[in-house]
């Protein structure tokens, strides 16, 4: 037969060969049980409360549980390192304000009189008493939000608490 001719008799005979391809012996004896077992398992799963179904999904996907665990640990360590970083930064700032921080050049754009900015923490005797309610660094009255030079870029340190030693 020439390819392209419209007589498909030989082809149909050849296609009949596919009918002889058979699954492993006993396959169709087991098949209905497998289907019914899957249906019953699904029905049992839908009868569970929602939280057990959620947990059940994790049971089926250990990789998902592992990934979730790693994600939680990652967030924890990130938080921990950030906390350390912030602590180190505040430790550098708290003992005494570095001169450059309050240098005239740094505050030039802020239009704050350099003379009014404190050079270091005032002593307890200057302030009266130490309290988180009595911020010692910001002795001057706070500037308004829309005051000239005010804004997020102006560093302004408010000490919230400190302890008094040797009194």
């Amino acid at each position, binding site marked *: 037969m020439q390819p*392209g001719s419209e007589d498909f008799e030989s082809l149909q005979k050849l296609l009949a060969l596919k009918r002889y391809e058979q699954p492993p012996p006993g396959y169709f004896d087991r098949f209905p049980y497998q289907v019914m077992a899957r249906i019953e398992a699904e029905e049992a799963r839908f009868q569970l409360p929602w939280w057990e179904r959620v947990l059940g999904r994790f049971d089926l996907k250990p990789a998902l549980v592992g990934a979730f665990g790693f994600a939680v640990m990652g967030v924890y360590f990130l938080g921990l390192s950030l906390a350390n970083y912030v602590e180190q930064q505040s430790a550098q700032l708290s003992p005494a304000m570095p001169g450059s921080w309050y240098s005239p050049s740094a505050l030039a754009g802020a239009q704050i009189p350099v003379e009014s900015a404190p050079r270091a923490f005032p002593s307890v005797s200057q302030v009266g008493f130490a309290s988180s309610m009595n911020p010692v660094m910001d002795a001057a009255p706070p500037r308004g939000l829309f005051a000239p030079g005010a804004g997020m870029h102006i560093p302004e340190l408010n000490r919230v608490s400190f302890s008094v030693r040797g009194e």
Partner: protein
Amino acid sequence: MIATLSPKPVATEDLPVPIEDQVLVKRAQGGDSAAFDELVRRYQERIYATVYHMTSNHEDANDLAQDAFVKAYRALGSFKGDSSFFTWLYRIAVNKTINFLKQRKNRNHLSLNDLDFNAEHDPDLIALVSDKTPRREVGLVELSEKLNAAMQKLSDDHRLVVTLHDVQGLPHEEISKIMNCNIGTVRSRLFYARQQLQAYLSDYLK
């Protein structure tokens, strides 16, 4: 007992009487799992065979055939009896298979079933196998592999038409219901698919 994949073409007259299916479906809709079990036993071979001939992979066919029956059970409530249960079930299996094949696209791993012993005694197949082949059995296995490889070269729609008509023996009208298209489309797809297959298998056709 050795199960075979529809050794005889399935004609509409061979199908179970629709009323029996309807009774079983009603019972299954009422929660009678034994009735659904009976429906699974009734159609498992045809559903499996369709999916298998579409995928040429036993493992995929097993999963997809099971999925089709599980989905049919879950969707039984929506079955109104507008078409026969057989057509409705076929549609579910075919849609599942086509969706699967779209995802699989570039993975054409064949996992073929063994040939039934009776294939060696089919006079039509004997005639097709070359006389020069030392062992007829080897010739048939090779022929089966070539045939499956050629089938996989067809588009999903063309392979489905050939499977349902030339392998499973369903009439055009039934195929048009399953594929949700008109009979003319079924005929033209069948013609084109046969032409393609004939070209791919020209060395094996006398």
